């Protein structure tokens, strides 16, 4: 490990942040049928700036960058930045020319009757499917929890909504008003997730464990645990398709 590696990673992070912010500024020049995409633009921009600030101040406590932990931290920050970057498509796609703009406002009004404090972004996708992304802000908060102080966390998220739902529809059906009725179905997913989230996890996890135990004859405890984890992941994936 060397100081040069950490410095290189910092310069990469600073450079990528600059690129993302430039793109966000370009996207913000577009017209949107509602204010929500601009709110998400600001959130992503502020997250990028927070990551940049964190990268630039890493190592200040010890006065040294020559440390594997610092290098690992910077690599995760860079990966996080690159993982968030594709979210620009949510705002870029939400512009007036890409959406059935005359539908957006009525649909937002309809959504607000169910989720008063959760604005939505409607955007086309090339995949022929309708989807909802119900936990964008919560994931951002979780990702940043360990690198932001409570104060920084508050400054970053206090003014943004608790959550934003990103609802995607098949772009080639943009003008098919009849098909867009399926959008209403997407609004039901968060309710289903909330219902399933209230299940007694201890109970069904114990049942899964007992079932897995029956099928495992090997005594390697690490393998046994991994099989349980895989099985639970499978169940979660199935549940996510509700």
């Amino acid at each position: 490990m060397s100081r040069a590696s950490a410095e290189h990673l910092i310069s990469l992070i600073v450079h990528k942040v600059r690129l993302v912010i430039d793109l966000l500024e370009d996207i913000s020049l577009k017209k949107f049928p509602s204010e929500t995409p601009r709110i998400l633009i600001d959130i992503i921009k502020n997250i990028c700036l927070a990551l940049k600030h964190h990268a630039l101040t890493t190592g200040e406590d010890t006065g040294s960058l020559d440390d594997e932990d610092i290098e690992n931290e910077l690599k995760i920050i860079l990966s996080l930045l690159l993982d968030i970057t594709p979210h620009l498509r949510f705002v870029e796609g939400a512009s007036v020319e890409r959406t059935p703009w005359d539908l957006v406002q009525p649909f937002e009004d309809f959504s607000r009757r169910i989720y008063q404090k959760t604005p939505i972004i409607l955007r086309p996708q090339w995949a022929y499917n309708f989807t909802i992304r119900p936990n964008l802000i919560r994931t951002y908060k979780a990702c940043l929890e360990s690198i932001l102080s409570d104060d920084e966390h508050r400054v970053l998220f206090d003014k943004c909504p608790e959550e934003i739902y990103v609802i995607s529809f098949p772009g080639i059906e943009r003008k098919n008003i009849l098909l867009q009725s399926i959008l209403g179905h997407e609004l039901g997913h968060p309710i289903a997730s909330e219902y399933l989230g209230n299940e007694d996890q201890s109970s069904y996890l114990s049942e899964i464990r007992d079932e897995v135990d029956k099928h495992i004859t090997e005594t390697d405890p690490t393998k046994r645990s991994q099989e349980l984890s895989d099985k639970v992941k499978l169940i979660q994936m199935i549940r996510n398709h509700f």
Partner: protein
Amino acid sequence: MATLVFGERGAVFNYGLLSTKTSRLLKRVVNNPMQSFSEEEFRIFAKAKTFLDQIIDGQRLMEGEKGGFKASLESVEAVSHALRILSVLRTEQMINEIKDISDIKKIFEGIRDVIQVINERQFGNIDSDKLYLARNFFLLISRKFVSDAQELAQLHPPMTL
């Protein structure tokens, strides 16, 4: 600690950054057992303890314990990450051979003890072997999280600077 939904990519970044920070703080204790920490740094230790609590709860579920702990999807997620480095800890001779499944929980409890003692500002009571193990646990697990994070961000090839 924010509640993470099982399998969410947020867990990789959150646990990853928590692990690198905890590893770094523990290194300072290894180098100077009378190290002082800021409130912000104690906040990291508190989160690290929560992470270890989840790991231990997950392990208790694996072991078939009934009651007395909180089995959740988060705890299964946490222990599945932790179990990945047991073999590395063994190869590096930082832990003894695992002869019984209950040995695994004891390893994680030993690591949690160190974090707990630091959280309580009882630096004089830190077991040096457990401290060394705790530091290496967080260093090794953070390497796994780096790899996971790069995979999620589709950084191919991974950065090997």
